[in-house]
């Protein structure tokens, strides 16, 4: 119908050339959506396969946590992300829903722990400073136990020791917490080798139990003979041995600490098992004390003052501590109507036994043998005595010693506990002697003596005065007379001198006389000789010589 109007032009249009052409399959274009589907499917499968487990963690507060932002990190590697945060049903905390990576699946077990890493300054350590800028994240410590878990309760404070640190955990029992806290260091030879990981009051309310972790390789030094003590702060002890100040380090002064040491000679023992239980002593001395298994109670009855004796004071046998004071009492004996002080002690026979070189077969460990031994010792003079250990502080201790020249006494086995006889204490004795001396001094008529002395001195003074007068008189009256006398004496001596001179006639005469005298003596000797030989010549006359 249009051909009429425009036919002139259109009729000239040449006909197209027909070609035999291979028809391309229209289906080829469908490769594109198939490829797209494959890619999409692969992405979807990959996402599903990589999708890790979703868990819930309950915290007290969601401070610093943000859904879709907060990461879960293990060793600072992202292992998950917080997906949602909601309040717990009881509104006591928050439930954080976390999606973890697939690799974390095997580690979602009972002892896996989660905590929020925030900037924290506590217990001598600063942690999580990086989170000041990057925001908090959830830390995780992978557990090892077998039971699978999906709902966790997060820790409020980061654990001190994570599962990947080599070492061992031990339990300590103590009476009180002291100044220890979680994170307090554990010292071995003053080197920090571990820390307190937990502490709680025992279920029965009697004492506190600590969990401590000791890093490898120091954990091998812990064996059954290892002693732990509280090394917190400055330990100032005032006891019978004097004042002691003990400390480990500045850090332990601030935040407390525990120290341990293994008894000398037991180093070769096998290391203690994991979670082995130990006692935590209050100080090193108490910890290193011989741990006595047998404690036998005894009592002493003292009659003098026990001021200075405290519970816990040692009982010493010639300087070796063999027991300690457990109780101090006072009682009035009706018989004598006087006070006495029963002091209850425990003795550790194990210590004495340890001193015994070798237990012979006769050594009887039973009750009767013990009694016989005690009786024998008391007979030999074994007594208890209160002694002053420290003159400065006046601390007393009970000495057990053998005394000579003491009144006889016996063990009182009827009392419970048995009574060991006592003697008055050394210082006490000295004191009483001093007292009696003082009393004697007191009794002396000191005033009268003073008065007498005064009188004596006065008369002495008078004597001195009269003596002086006498001397003066002598000086005046006697001196001239004496002078003339002396002159006379000199004259007389001069005369004597002249008389006795060698050439004086008196001398000549004397010499001659003496010569005559000696001759006379000679004759006399001859006469006596003759008389001796011939006594008859006195009567008959001198016999003529027969020769």
């Amino acid at each position, binding site marked *: 119908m*249009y051909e009429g109007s425009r036919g002139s032009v*259109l009729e000239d*249009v*040449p*006909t*197209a*050339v*027909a*070609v*035999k*052409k291979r*028809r391309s399959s*229209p289906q080829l*274009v*469908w490769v*594109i*959506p198939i*490829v*797209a*589907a494959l*890619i*999409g499917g692969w*992405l*979807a499968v990959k*996402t599903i396969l990589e999708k890790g487990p979703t868990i819930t963690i309950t915290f007290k507060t969601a401070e610093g946590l943000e859904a*879709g*932002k907060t*990461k879960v990190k293990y060793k600072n590697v*992202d292992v998950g992300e917080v997906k949602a945060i909601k309040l717990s049903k009881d509104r006591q905390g928050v439930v954080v829903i976390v999606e973890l990576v697939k690799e974390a699946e095997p580690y979602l077990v009972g002892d896996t722990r989660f905590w929020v890493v925030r900037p924290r300054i506590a217990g001598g350590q600063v942690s999580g400073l*990086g989170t000041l*800028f*990057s*925001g908090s*994240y959830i830390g995780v410590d992978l557990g090892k136990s077998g039971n699978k878990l999906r709902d966790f309760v997060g820790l409020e404070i980061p654990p001190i020791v994570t599962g990947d640190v080599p070492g061992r955990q031990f339990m300590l029992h103590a009476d009180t917490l002291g100044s220890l806290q979680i994170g307090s260091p554990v010292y071995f030879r003053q080197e920090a080798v571990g820390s307190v990981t937990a502490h709680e009051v025992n279920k029965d309310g009697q004492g506190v139990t600590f969990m401590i972790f000791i890093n490898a390789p120091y954990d091998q030094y812990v064996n059954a003979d290892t002693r732990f003590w509280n090394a917190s702060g400055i330990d100032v002890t005032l006891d019978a041995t004097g004042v002691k100040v003990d400390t480990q380090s500045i850090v332990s002064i601030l935040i407390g600490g525990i120290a341990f040491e293994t008894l000398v000679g037991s180093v070769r023992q096998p290391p203690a098992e994991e979670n082995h239980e130990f006692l935590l002593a209050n100080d090193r001395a108490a910890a290193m004390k011989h741990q006595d298994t047998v404690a036998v109670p005894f009592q002493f009855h003292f009659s003098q003052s026990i001021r200075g004796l405290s519970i816990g004071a040692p009982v010493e046998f010639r300087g070796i501590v063999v027991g300690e004071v457990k109780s101090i009492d006072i009682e009035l004996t009706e018989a004598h109507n006087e006070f006495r002080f029963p002091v209850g002690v425990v003795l550790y026979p194990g210590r004495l036994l340890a001193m015994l070189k070798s237990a012979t077969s006769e050594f009887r460990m039973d009750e009767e043998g013990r009694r016989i031994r005690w009786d024998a010792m008391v007979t030999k003079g074994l007594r208890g005595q209160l002694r002053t250990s420290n003159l400065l502080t006046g601390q007393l201790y009970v000495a057990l010693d053998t005394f000579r020249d003491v009144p006889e006494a016996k063990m009182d086995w009827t009392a419970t506990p048995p009574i060991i006889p006592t003697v008055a204490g050394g210082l006490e004795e000295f004191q009483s002697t001093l007292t009696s001396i003082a009393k004697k001094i007191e009794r002396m008529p000191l005033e009268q003596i003073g008065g007498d002395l005064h009188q004596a001195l006065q008369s002495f003074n008078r004597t001195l005065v009269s003596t002086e007068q006498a001397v003066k008189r002598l000086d005046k009256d006697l001196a001239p007379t004496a002078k003339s006398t002396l002159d006379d004496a000199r004259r007389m001596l001069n005369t004597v001198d002249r008389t006795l001179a060698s050439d004086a006639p008196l001398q000549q005469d004397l010499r001659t006389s003496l010569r005559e005298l000696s001759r006379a003596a000679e004759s006399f000797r001859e006469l006596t000789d003759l008389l001796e030989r011939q006594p008859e010549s006195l009567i008959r006359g001198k016999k003529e010589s027969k020769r």
Partner: protein
Amino acid sequence: MSDSDVTASQLGLCVCHGCGGLSRLAGEGHDMCCRRCGTALHLRKPNSVARTWAFLIAAYILYVPANVLPMMRTGSLFGAQSDTIMSGVAYLWHSGSWHLALVVFIASILIPLTKMFSLTFLLISVQRGWTERALERTKLYRVLDFVGPWSMLDVYVVTILVALVQLKTLATIQPGPAAAAFGAVVVLTMFATMALDPRLLWEPKENHHV
């Protein structure tokens, strides 16, 4: 279509894409060449509807990972973060830059979706052979053709950031898998738009020359 409108196919004529010369088609009009330059002649784009469908379906498929997977991974000194398109929009909105959020939302979510839905609508209309409102539908097609490249905005942003922010330890930005998927969606929709022959919008079904 008014009666005075006439198309080349109705006259049995076909214009050559190569040289512009008119040829008369003989018989069914298949497998013909231009007499002058030898270019293959066809009245309409061959397999237009099927090709468009193929591209469109591929775009639909890839649109899912493009939105679900992270678009961009930001690593900084204090942690890493990956954002999908939607979380980026949400972040911008919450941080107060609502106008930026609006731009990103329109460019990255609204336009691709509109484009894909519109193309679907046009394809269905062609397949059903609707002839009503052909003018409006053609206008829609023109808008689609024009707006196509602009939805690459998100991909541009990621590309520029990845190139600029490479401070190693301080901060790095890496493209996520969604960036590739999203780029593919945009390109596929553009191909789909190109594959659709707008002339088909004017013709009833029986007249389709495939």
